[in-house]
């Protein structure tokens, strides 16, 4: 037994289970575990528990977020400005009252309560903000199963849903998911460009009394949305990464493909 192995302790077993040992130490710990079956069993049980916990609670990430929580998160819209000010204050920078107020007046977004943004655009922006940053679970069904995805979403929405092709615009289909509400089911398709910029297309069934509309633009936080109603569906194209003009170009392309 080497000198180092004598110093393998309780903390090392946990760190091994949590995968946070430096490479050299990991090798030492594994040598110890190979020679000490009881410790090896214990460390393996800890690691298994981690996996069980993640597997058990992972589905919570994919549940639709209750509306009351979205409202709680959005209740005030001055978050970024206030946080930035707080940050500067923490650094000891004094901001004059007038300067601070001007900053606030210039950058504070429109409060949610009196926003004119219609439900379609607002929900689309929220859905975008919820899923676009996802690294591990951006979609429920990946683009590799596109036929299945489109058939599934069409069935759930009760109409012929299609995933427009935006490859010529530099956006590749990542996949899609079903969002269960609003008030009927909603489909969300996600596209991504090579540098990792994302847009989502939100598709919901509209009632028969809804008239068709031209493109309209809305902004929620830093999510830009173009939305329109076309025959039986309402569409909203959202992105926090694309500028308004780029987004409009994509919206035009989508409209063109859906109305050949």
């Amino acid at each position, binding site marked *: 037994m080497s000198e180092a192995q004598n110093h393998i302790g309780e903390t090392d077993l946990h760190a091994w289970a949590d995968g946070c040992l430096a490479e050299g130490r990991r090798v030492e710990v594994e040598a110890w575990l190979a020679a000490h079956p009881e410790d090896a069993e214990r460390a393996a049980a800890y690691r298994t528990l*981690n996996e069980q916990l993640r597997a058990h609670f992972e589905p919570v990430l994919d549940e639709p977020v209750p509306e009351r929580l979205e409202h709680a998160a959005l209740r005030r819209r001055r978050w970024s400005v206030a946080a930035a000010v*707080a940050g500067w204050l923490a650094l000891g920078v004094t901001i004059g009252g007038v300067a601070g107020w001007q900053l606030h007046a210039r950058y504070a977004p429109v409060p949610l309560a009196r926003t004119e943004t219609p439900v379609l655009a607002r929900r689309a922006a929220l859905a975008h903000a919820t899923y676009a940053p996802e690294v591990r679970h951006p979609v429920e069904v990946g683009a590799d199963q596109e036929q299945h995805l489109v058939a599934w979403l069409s069935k759930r929405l009760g109409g012929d849903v299609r995933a427009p092709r935006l490859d010529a615009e530099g956006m590749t289909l990542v996949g899609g998911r079903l969002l269960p509400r609003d008030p009927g089911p909603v489909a969300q398709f996600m596209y991504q460009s090579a540098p990792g910029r994302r847009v989502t297309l939100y598709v919901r069934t509209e009632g028969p009394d809804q008239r068709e509309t031209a493109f309209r633009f809305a902004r929620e936080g830093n999510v830009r949305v173009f939305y329109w109603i076309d025959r039986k569906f309402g569409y909203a194209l959202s992105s*926090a990464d694309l500028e308004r003009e780029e987004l409009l170009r994509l919206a035009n392309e989508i409209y063109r493909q859906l109305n050949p």
Partner: protein
Amino acid sequence: MSDVVSLIALIPRLRRYARALVGERAAADDLVQDTLERAWSKLHLYRHGTDLRAWLFTVMHNVHVNQVRAARPTAALEDDMPELAQRAVQGDALLVRDLERAIAALPAAQREVLLLVALEDLSYDETARVLGIPIGTVMSRLARAREKVRALMQGKGGSKLQVVK
């Protein structure tokens, strides 16, 4: 990404942690809602540029502590202070094999450490900062939590920890 969008994007993760922490869905969402509301009122304490998720876990921890304390004035989150969930299963430890019930049987202080490390993948340092405790306390709570869950899952009951050489 603005912080508003970050905040919305973090809701699913807050919900996951809260669900594991308190067990029941509605109560967990209540905790998330209280956390978000408290986050707004404590915004001046958030240091811009630091990990927003970790900060929200801290806020949630404080909200949770206060709720538990309000429910049972003498309990707080002391290590050896069992919560209601544990009392419910204590006499029946042999039957506790289910993961959720094993987690629920932990004292809240141990459960928090275990979940932040094992479920939320925080480092020991981050966990110590989130909970405002020394890293040595993180390690001892983590060790006790894991041994207890292991024992419960093996149906050995929580009272007799295995002898560690």
